[in-house]
């Protein structure tokens, strides 16, 4: 490794996307923002650094999509060649700034691997922005050459080489194991919490009407930012990506998901939208869209926006196999393209096409083991990979397998 560059003396760094890439149906502004957020999070997860997005002109890390000569001494050269750069920390006013060549065909999880994966390049450039130089190490995101897509931003784990170099610069985050070793899956450096959940919310005593997690028939179940959320009545339980319950006591929905009606007595279905990672809540004939924990303006709106029936939905989940969103109601299901924002032709279909999955589901979700899970009553069913058939050995009890019940 080369000699470390300058480093930031402060630990809280602001960022802002000053200019966005040229219009692309697959890479909207919210998607670009989400990718930058997750690319920065890769570094903050393993270090004492924190990144927060701001609106003004004073951001520490100004992000631009620009082209050709843009007056910083590092002109871009059209498609291919140089694709991006970032400035090391220091006294210069450009310190931390990150530029992407807008002549590149930026993509995100392109199924045919064409184009330049924006997340992969952003992780590399933000490594420079916090002080890392290029390295020749084979297992490093800081190799100078484009290495292709790195996969799901929610699952990306920095190579050990890069973690060590960041620790040398900034020390280790409180949430990171100091004994972590390469290739040891039991020693993950990633903290499990993805969404902001202040401690005081989880310590608020639940009301007398809070449900029993071991006997509940859940209203909705969702995977959000890699974690599992089980909703019942006005409450929810949260599990980390390692399936560890954050708390045995449920949290109140309206205190965490800011903007839902306080008198909302339950939700029907919840899912994290592919592409921009916004979170969609369904209740009756209405739906709400959340950016992180906060509802977007203009909601609720009618579920007819999706082309869904007027009776509501039982379940919603995104199938890893094709990145499409599936809605279930009674014994029918619909397939929706969240990237194109339209229902696919030929739906609804009979839900018995999902062999072994019962009708009138409570909800369904994808999970990080590349499986889809269907929930009804006290039981759940697993569908592996691209199969449309329940795996042998199911149903199994929800409480025992997910919620620390005996």
């Amino acid at each position, binding site marked *: 490794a*080369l*000699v470390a560059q300058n480093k930031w003396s402060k630990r809280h760094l602001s960022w802002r996307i000053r200019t966005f890439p040229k219009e692309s149906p697959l890479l909207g502004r919210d998607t670009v923002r989400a990718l930058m957020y997750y690319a920065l999070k890769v570094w903050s997860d393993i270090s004492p650094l924190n990144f927060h997005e701001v609106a003004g002109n004073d951001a520490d890390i100004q992000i631009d999509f620009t082209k050709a000569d843009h007056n910083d001494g*590092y002109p871009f050269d059209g498609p291919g060649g*140089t694709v991006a*750069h*970032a400035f*090391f920390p220091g006294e210069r006013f450009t310190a931390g700034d990150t530029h992407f060549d807008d002549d590149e065909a930026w993509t995100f999880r392109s199924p045919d691997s064409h184009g330049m994966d924006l997340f992969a390049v952003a992780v*590399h450039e933000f490594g420079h922005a916090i002080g890392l130089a290029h390295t020749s190490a*084979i297992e490093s995101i800081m190799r*100078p050459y484009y290495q292709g897509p790195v996969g799901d931003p929610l699952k990306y784990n920095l190579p050990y080489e890069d973690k060590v170099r960041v620790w040398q610069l900034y020390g280790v985050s409180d949430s990171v194991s100091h004994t972590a070793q390469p290739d040891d899956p039991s020693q993950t450096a990633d903290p499990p919490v993805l969404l902001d959940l202040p401690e005081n919310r989880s310590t608020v005593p639940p009301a007398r009407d809070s449900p029993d997690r071991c006997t509940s028939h859940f209203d909705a179940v969702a995977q959000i930012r890699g974690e599992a959320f089980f909703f019942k009545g006005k409450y929810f339980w949260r599990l980390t990506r390692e399936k560890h319950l954050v708390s045995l006591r449920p949290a109140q929905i309206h205190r965490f998901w800011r903007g839902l009606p306080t008198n909302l007595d339950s939700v029907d279905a919840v899912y994290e939208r592919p592409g921009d990672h916004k979170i969609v809540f369904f209740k009756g004939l209405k739906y709400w869209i959340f950016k992180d924990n906060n509802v977007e303006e203009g909601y609720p709106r009618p579920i007819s926006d999706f082309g869904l029936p007027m009776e509501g939905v039982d379940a919603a989940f995104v199938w890893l196999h094709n990145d499409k969103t599936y809605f279930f109601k009674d014994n029918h299901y619909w397939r929706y393209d969240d990237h194109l924002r339209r229902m696919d032709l030929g739906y609804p279909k009979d839900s018995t096409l999902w062999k072994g999955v019962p009708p009138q589901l409570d909800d369904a979700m994808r999970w990080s083991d590349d499986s889809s899970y269907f929930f009804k009553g006290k039981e759940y069913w697993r569908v592996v990979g691209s199969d449309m058939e329940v795996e042998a050995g199911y149903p199994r009890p929800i409480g025992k397998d997910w919620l620390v019940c005996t």
Partner: protein
Amino acid sequence: RAAPSLTAEQMDMGVDWLSKYGYLPPPDPVTGQLQTKEALTKAIKAMQKFGGLEETGVLDQATLGLMKTPRCSLPDLSETEVMVGRRRR
């Protein structure tokens, strides 16, 4: 010539690339003097080593291929090392 099959254009491209990414000081802006063959060979070897190629010291097709791979604009040598190179020049 670094390699028998290399064109002048490829040679220029190689030298530009090596200068751009910190392996070779750029030609002297006053005298226009180019690098010595020894300096060029050393720079090529350094680039090949950094890129995981066999260190032949010649601009062969594999080396030119790596030079055409999309990459980050920043040099591979640290700023300190680039400055040391400039001072030496």
